[in-house]
């Protein structure tokens, strides 16, 4: 492949790269070469940045040209076939390995990271939260095939239920957690009802609208939610009544350890780790129960489902409610971790990130969600502290600004490269005689009809 560099190929790659560069020149002319800057007293002024513009074009040319020379322009990964592998294959061992790694992670971090451990613990908690959200949404999107773009609404309901309960009744995290989950599940049912008849894209847009409605209500209902100022002083979780602060009667004191602020983080990590495992476990069990089978049948073909006597209304509602409930749990965890919530945290972008994790991981694949969260969230967060890039591109370069741009582009690239997600084969929940793994092309995933 790469060795085959014929003159014809060189010429065509050259021509293509020149055309691409010309188009890029047209695309970026206004938005990169000129910048509108607001100057006090004068108004908008145009700033010219030809150097940046030219560098960008050179980059486009070089990338396109070398890409064509190296690959011949093939983008798509080869089509996955139906592969038959014995039961208990690599995926299972990978799962066990990840589980052990998950249990040991805080200790590995505290042992190796030294001073930077808070950062890494925080990052692990963040990734684990997204793993849990991904698994929760996987029930709705991956199993039942209902595309939900407003999942963040349930996350918000969970967070606000806990925060408001704590504020008005003084209850702690553990008492509020089930209530928050139940309330979120209840909202899942309420929002699920009207959209039962919708399919595919329409469902996606209506759920998106619901997500925005909940956010706008939280933002404007000052008397109850404190509006854009949010709710602060949300209580931290305790270990059977033992707090993690400094001083007598607290965790470090009771167990005879030196006080460290990492203890609370490790505790939080284990809470979200266990919550996520519960989500996973419940999902795996539900898949084998009649309701789980009904979800998967619904995803494959709704009409066939109905003609076989499955109550599609109840099936969809349970999927919505179950997914929403786990979103609610994750939400109240988020509230207790942050200690402060405001509607700002529950924008559409969150829903998009969670959906991206589910889809990029390979819908319906539990391990795929883990890999996608680590790659997307971890990778993006890592950009924050890349000093290497800074040394190449100068001190003014702030990689943090490029996070969401790269995130969006990564979504496009991964979709084009592997539309079925990273893990694109799966074991059917039930099988006749012998278990096989099948390529995802065989399953009609997430089409919602």
């Amino acid at each position, binding site marked *: 492949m790469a060795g085959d560099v014929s003159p014809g190929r060189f010429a065509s790659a050259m021509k293509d790269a020149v055309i691409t560069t010309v188009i890029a020149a047209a695309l970026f002319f206004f938005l990169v070469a000129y910048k509108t*800057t607001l100057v006090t007293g004068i108004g908008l002024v145009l700033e010219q940045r030809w150097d940046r513009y030219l560098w960008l074009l050179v980059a486009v040319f070089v990338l396109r040209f070398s890409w064509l020379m190296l690959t011949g322009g093939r983008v798509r990964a080869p089509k996955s076939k139906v592969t038959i592998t014995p039961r208990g294959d690599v995926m299972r061992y990978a799962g066990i390995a990840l589980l052990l790694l998950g249990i040991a992670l805080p200790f590995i971090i505290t042992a190796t990271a030294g001073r930077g451990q808070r950062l890494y613990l925080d990052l692990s908690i963040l990734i684990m939260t997204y793993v849990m959200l991904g698994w929760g949404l996987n029930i709705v999107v991956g199993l039942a095939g209902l595309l939900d773009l407003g999942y963040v609404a349930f996350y918000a309901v969970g967070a606000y239920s806990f925060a408001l309960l704590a504020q008005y009744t003084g209850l702690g995290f553990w008492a509020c957690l089930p209530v928050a989950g139940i309330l979120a599940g209840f909202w899942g049912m309420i929002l699920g009802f009207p959209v039962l008849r919708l399919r595919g894209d329409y469902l996606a847009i209506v759920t998106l609208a619901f997500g925005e409605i909940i956010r706008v209500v939280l933002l404007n209902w000052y008397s109850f939610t404190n509006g854009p100022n949010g709710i602060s002083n949300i209580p931290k979780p305790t270990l059977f009544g033992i707090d993690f602060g400094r001083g007598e009667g607290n965790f470090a004191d009771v167990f005879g350890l030196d006080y460290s602020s990492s203890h609370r983080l490790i505790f939080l990590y284990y809470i979200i780790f266990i919550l996520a495992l519960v989500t996973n476990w419940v999902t795996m069990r539900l898949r084998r129960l009649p309701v789980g089978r009904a979800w998967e049948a619904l995803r494959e073909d709704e*009409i066939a489902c109905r003609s076989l006597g499955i109550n599609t209304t109840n099936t969809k509602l349970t999927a919505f409610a179950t997914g929403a409930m786990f979103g609610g749990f994750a939400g109240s965890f988020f509230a207790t971790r942050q200690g402060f919530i405001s509607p700002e945290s529950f924008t559409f972008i969150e829903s998009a990130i969670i959906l991206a994790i589910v889809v990029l991981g390979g819908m319906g694949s539990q391990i795929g969600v883990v890999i996608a969260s680590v790659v997307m969230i971890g990778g993006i967060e890592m950009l924050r502290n890349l000093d290497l890039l800074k040394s190449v591109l100068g001190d003014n370069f702030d990689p943090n600004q490029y996070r969401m741009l790269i995130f969006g582009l990564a979504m496009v690239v991964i979709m084009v490269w592997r539309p079925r997600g990273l893990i694109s084969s799966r074991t059917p929940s039930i099988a006749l005689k012998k278990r096989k793994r099948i390529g995802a092309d065989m399953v009609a995933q*997430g089409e919602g009809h």
Partner: protein
Amino acid sequence: MEYFLQQLVNGVTLGSIYGLIAIGYTMVYGIIGMINFAHGDIFMISAFIALITFLALAALGITMLPLVLVIMFVVAMVFTGIWGWAVERTAYRPLRGSFRLAPLISAIGMSIALQNFVQLTQDARVKPLAPQIQGGITLMEGANENGAIVVQLSYMQMFIIAVTVVLMTVFSLLVSRTRLGRAQRACEQDQKMARLLGVDTNRTIAITFISGAGLAAVAGTMFLLYYGVIDFYIGFLAGIKAFTAAVLGGIGSLPGAMLGGLLIGLIEVFWSAYFSVEYKDVAAFSILAIVLIFLPSGLLGKPEVEKV
């Protein structure tokens, strides 16, 4: 009564802008059955292109208003058209024939990328533009307990409504009378068959994206002139409302998109005027949900029958 009339005028103006964006959604959905989630951001980009063109012209010393306006519209339409084409070419065409969700996810990614691209290159602050078309005519004068109320139709509003009407007429003729329009309608009905009969479907789809982006550019330029403030985030809400408009009117139908746009504009304006400004987005979204639940094929759309 005067208050009502004034809101009616404002609502029709806003509705025209929504309607023009909605056409982009409705055409793309009609032809390839996907929600072009990045369309709202294409609209946002066009507003920026128009603003930069305006500033560049001012720097060159060209200030004759009609000329400036014409150049702004033409430049915005051309360059936004290229953006629409590029987005289709890179993010959607490779996914054609893939499963249904893939283009939608790709479009969401594109939308996030475009927003952040503009935020990066043009920073996050709002960009103001002083009103260029001033003055207007007074339609009616009345009085209430607070003093005189004047129903005013500004020249800007007249301009927006006139441009929309002209564009809609031209566009409807384009779709119903020309070879290109026929190819478009053929692709909409059956892509495979259209290809067999010699229609270049890829080209037709690309042109659909370009013309949708062009109309969004007109809407973006008028938005800039009418409101005088833009930022990188205007595409999201405008996009969702325009999509609502397309669904309300019946997705796939051009007159439907325009009708839907007008209705959404009117609902939003009247809701803000008589109930509460804070919840105007909730009103628009609720309309979307209600329409989809009770009237899934929209006001002017054809009902979709599922065959087994």
